[in-house]
């Protein structure tokens, strides 16, 4: 187990290196750059722009900039935002919880509803429920998230007036209830696709397990169907789901990013789009590294969780 951990962490570091190189190169492919935001400002002259470029170190060769950035990162210095001069980690941390709130609530919705639909579909294979779940999941997977958000706003905010059109809270009314009220629409929008994904995977995992010999053994023992489902099927079917949860994280992040733009949610997604718009390299790179670390860490945690649950790995 420690050997396995060490190996995974080393692999992760290599992955991070790859991610950072890809990110840095792609980012610097963008013409323009962080100073473009002043291009229209009548009072900033080319001389000022040249001065700033030099001060920010943007006139150095790309590899020097990368090495400098990477070296600082290794020392724990994520750099400072070009836009507000704040340390990148602090900038990210300030947007973190809004995103986590959204991702968390939608994940809870997605996992609980998705798992329920998936198990029910598998145990009622071929039923109307199964069929409806299959069709529903595929349609849900086909709806563009941002469009679903727009339609949601149109129906529930503009027409019915039940739910707010955006934002995380009403200024002056920052009660838990108020937050929840604002959370409903975006988290449902974000959850939609993932309910579909979870239900599909849960269904096939459950079916896989149900076809295994040990389920037959359990039946031959005279166990009740309920016990077979709860003790033998669900446990084994959830095992690959843990891994899936890790793998799904980037897509949840992407979804959160899109959802945040539609619902003007002050999270990392919006920070990302804004920073990209301003070519705030340190923040964009920071966000990339952060999300990559998040993804890698969650995969690692998923693997460890699987290892802890699965005696074949835990004790091997």
């Amino acid at each position, binding site marked *: 187990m420690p050997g396995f951990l060490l190996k995974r962490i080393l692999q992760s570091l*290599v992955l991070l290196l790859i991610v950072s190189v890809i990110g840095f190169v792609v980012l610097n492919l963008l013409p323009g750059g962080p100073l473009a935001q002043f291009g229209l400002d009548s009072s900033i002259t080319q001389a000022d722009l040249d001065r700033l470029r030099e001060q920010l170190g943007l006139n150095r060769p790309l590899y020097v900039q990368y090495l400098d950035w990477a070296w600082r990162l290794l020392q724990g210095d994520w750099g400072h935002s070009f836009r507000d001069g704040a340390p990148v980690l602090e900038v990210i941390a300030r947007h973190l919880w809004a995103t986590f709130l959204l991702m968390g609530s939608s994940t809870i919705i997605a996992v609980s509803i998705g798992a329920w639909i998936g198990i029910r579909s598998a145990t009622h294979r071929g039923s109307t429920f199964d069929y409806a779940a299959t069709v529903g999941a*595929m349609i849900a997977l086909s709806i563009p998230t941002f469009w679903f958000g727009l339609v949601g706003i149109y129906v529930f905010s503009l027409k019915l007036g039940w739910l707010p059109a955006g934002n995380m809270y009403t200024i002056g009314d920052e009660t838990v209830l108020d937050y929840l009220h604002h959370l409903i629409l975006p988290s449902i929008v974000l959850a939609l696709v993932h309910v579909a994904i979870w239900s599909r995977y849960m269904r096939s995992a459950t079916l896989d397990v149900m076809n295994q010999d040990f389920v037959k053994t359990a039946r031959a023992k005279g166990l009740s169907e309920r016990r077979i489902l709860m003790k033998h099927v669900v446990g084994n079917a959830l095992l690959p789901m843990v891994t899936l949860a890790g793998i799904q994280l980037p897509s949840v992040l992407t979804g959160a990013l899109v959802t945040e733009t539609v619902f003007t949610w002050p999270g990392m997604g919006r920070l990302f789009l804004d920073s990209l718009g301003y070519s705030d390299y340190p923040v964009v790179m920071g966000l990339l590294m952060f999300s990559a670390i998040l993804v890698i860490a969650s995969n690692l945690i998923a693997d460890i969780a699987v290892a802890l649950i699965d005696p074949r790995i835990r004790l091997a």
Partner: protein
Amino acid sequence: MTSATLSQPIRERWWRSRTTRRFITNKLAMFGLGMIVLLVLACILAPHLLPYGSLDIDLRARFAPPFTGYHFFGTDPLGRDVAARLFEAGRISLAVGFSAMLLSTIIGTLVGVIAGYRGGWIGSVLMRTVDGFLSFPSIFLVLALAAALQPSAMMITIVIAATSWMEVARIVDAEVRSLREREFVQAGRMLGLSGAHIMFREILPNALGPIIVAATLTVARAILMEAYISFLGYGIQPPLPSWGNMLNGAQQYLGSAPWLAIIPGAAITIAVASFNFIGDGLRDAFDVRSDGH
């Protein structure tokens, strides 16, 4: 020697194969196929049949709601016919979806086959690169690339392909890895066939099922991706309509002209769902374990 006479088996043609039969008996898949055929036909024919061109600006007829005169889907902020634009856009969106699928499938298949068959450090490097790409929120790569390149239908296609080949690569890699251990591949080596021959002539045809399924789903994803990119303004540039950029301006008029958002969004959903139905049908058809519907 014992006689081992060949019991005359019926020659199987592909259209009579079990896979085909499973597929055509899959109602959803056939529905999806039907929708795609209809959509493609509509996109080809509608611009010739509708009374308005997709670029005819008429500032006096702005924001006409659906079914105003011959504007069946209404008009947009420049008074252009939404129906004409929708089907014109369909050409672009579907073309982008298809070409992106082709491109990413080719890239993904190449990478996957080589990584899966060669294994070792080549495989590791290739698949770690795939992992690297997959560790980003894909929208980042897409946006950054789209922003870096001059937007055009071809560039968008390349951008989408460049960011969606990893899925195919993973599927092919896994498939090839398992096929590599099959005895017929060992037999190929035993016969002294070259690596390239074994990879592309012996193994690849056996991985076609999953590749076709992945490709179908990639079309769906590519259409969605084009919509995202164009929605965010980095994609297909006006006046060329695409489903995504039709939605782009629509958010602003959600209250006053909701059809501008609803119609192209519905078109995207229908097209993507149809491809998903087909992909799912194909998956069921290729998967010997499943019973289909």
